[in-house]
């Protein structure tokens, strides 16, 4: 569970699951991201910590190629998102912050649509669907309409959907927003399980400090700039703080941020 700080490291044979190199982005005059670099290794859980306006959403839009990177590069398993978007995107699973399931359709229909978007045929899609729904313990609900699910269940289905094309890098944008404590813990446990069992690399964006575990890697983003990155312990000690929560508060100048709504 090593954290890769530089991709040019010759000791590294396999490419990082996600590699963000010197990415800057502005909307008109407003700079949303300023020379941000970090990477996520396969089989690791990295938390992208930032308050609102930190640039998390912009970063996610760039990684998913909603719009093109203005400067710098983003690579997924070595494939540049700008130059080979198809190869990059097929290796990436995404759970957006906004709910993106079709409420009127069933879970199975939603997943089938996603499979089609990835060019996965009906028979194969059906097999995989069973498999990914089992992973999030929703296999017996496949025929249910999404509208009838709870918020936590919808999120689990979205995670299952993101796994359908077997990506080895998973991007989650504030996946626990609006969920109760139990559902939050569930989702976190599921995703951590994926990292341990399947060797998936995860980038988990949040502003909730209590979602960070001591074994995680963190990337701290504030007003478009990267303040620090690395293992939780390292970041805390570099900031001279007893824990990551205080370190984050100290770095960003925020008071406590737990429980704050977005």
């Amino acid at each position, binding site marked *: 569970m090593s954290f890769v700080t530089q991709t040019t490291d010759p000791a590294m044979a*396999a*490419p990082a*699951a996600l590699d963000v190199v010197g990415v800057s982005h502005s*909307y*008109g005059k*407003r700079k*949303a991201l300023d020379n941000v670099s970090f990477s996520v290794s*396969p*089989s690791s859980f990295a938390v992208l910590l930032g308050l609102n306006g930190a640039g998390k959403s912009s970063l996610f*839009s760039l990684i*998913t*190629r*909603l*719009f*093109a990177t203005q400067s710098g590069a983003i690579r997924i*398993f*070595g494939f540049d998102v*700008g130059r080979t*978007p*198809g*190869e*990059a*995107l*097929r*290796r*990436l699973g*995404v759970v*957006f*912050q*906004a*709910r*993106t399931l*079709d409420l*009127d*359709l069933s879970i199975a*229909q939603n997943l*089938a*649509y*996603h*499979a*089609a*978007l*990835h*060019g*996965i*045929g*009906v028979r194969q899609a059906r097999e995989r669907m069973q498999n990914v729904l089992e992973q999030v313990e929703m296999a017996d609900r496949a025929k249910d309409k999404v509208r009838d699910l709870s918020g936590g269940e919808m999120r689990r289905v979205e995670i299952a959907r993101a796994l359908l094309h077997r*990506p*080895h*890098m998973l991007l989650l944008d504030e996946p626990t927003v609006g969920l109760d404590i139990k559902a939050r813990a569930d989702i976190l446990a599921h995703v951590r399980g994926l990292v341990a069992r*399947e*060797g*998936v690399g995860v980038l988990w964006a949040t502003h909730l400090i209590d979602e960070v575990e001591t074994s995680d890697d963190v990337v701290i983003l504030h007003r478009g700039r990267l303040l620090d990155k690395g293992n939780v312990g390292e970041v805390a000690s570099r900031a001279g703080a007893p824990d990551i929560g205080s370190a984050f508060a100290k770095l960003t100048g925020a008071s406590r941020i737990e429980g704050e709504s977005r």
Partner: protein
Amino acid sequence: MTNEASNAAALAKGFGVAQYAICLKGVVWREALRFLHQRERFISALVRPLVWLFIFAAGFRSVLGVSIIPPYDTYVLYEVYITPGLMAMIQLFNGMQSSLSMVYDREMGNMRTLLVSPLPRWFLLTSRLIAGASVSLLQVYAFLLVAYLWEIEPPSLWGYVTVLPALILSGLMFGALGMLLSSLIKQLENFAGVMNFVIFPMFFASSALYPLWRVKEGGPWLAFFCELNPFTYAVELIRFAFYQQVDPLALAVVLGATIVFLAAAILAYDPSRGMLMRREGL
């Protein structure tokens, strides 16, 4: 495979024709499913033209006579004259609604699930367009069925077949126009605005309700606008095709407009042109 990273990298590169076909089928299928689940949308798509047909046209039947102009070789009832215009209106509404749902989708994130697909973006947008046009075909044929029961029908049943390619093309044109507008105009969230500034002007300043020679009598300026309006050509293309004929000028204009609108929409949705970014970053 021992290493997960090399496992991922070992995925076969590129996409075959089969993958494209699966994707297109999936997008059309989803749009059809959504349409079937939205009964109100279907009913209002059907009622709107029927109101025009049964109330407006019936009322104006005696006021407006239509002389013999191609493709008609006899005097026709006013209801018969406006039917192709109403078919085009159904498609115009559907095209705008479907583009509106793209904007709505974008906010809800559904557009993002489409755009995060690894297939090329032009293909995804075109698939979405074909899906929207397919839904409009269902609506038009449902309308034609009711019209048939009202004895408004083409001279031969073949008309129902020959009108199909015309409807496909005009459906694509309106969808492409809607898609272009959805990428450019922020105010499009408000459907009333689309009604006022797109649908009504296009519908009224066209040959849908009155033949162009009549418009010319009334006002040459209006006739000029009608002749610039792509909707006019969609109506004429459908009108002639319903009578198993081809209007070459209409065909050329509709085909050309479809290509231009679609190309512009694809450019507008291109990540590096930044239309989306401009919206997002506001």
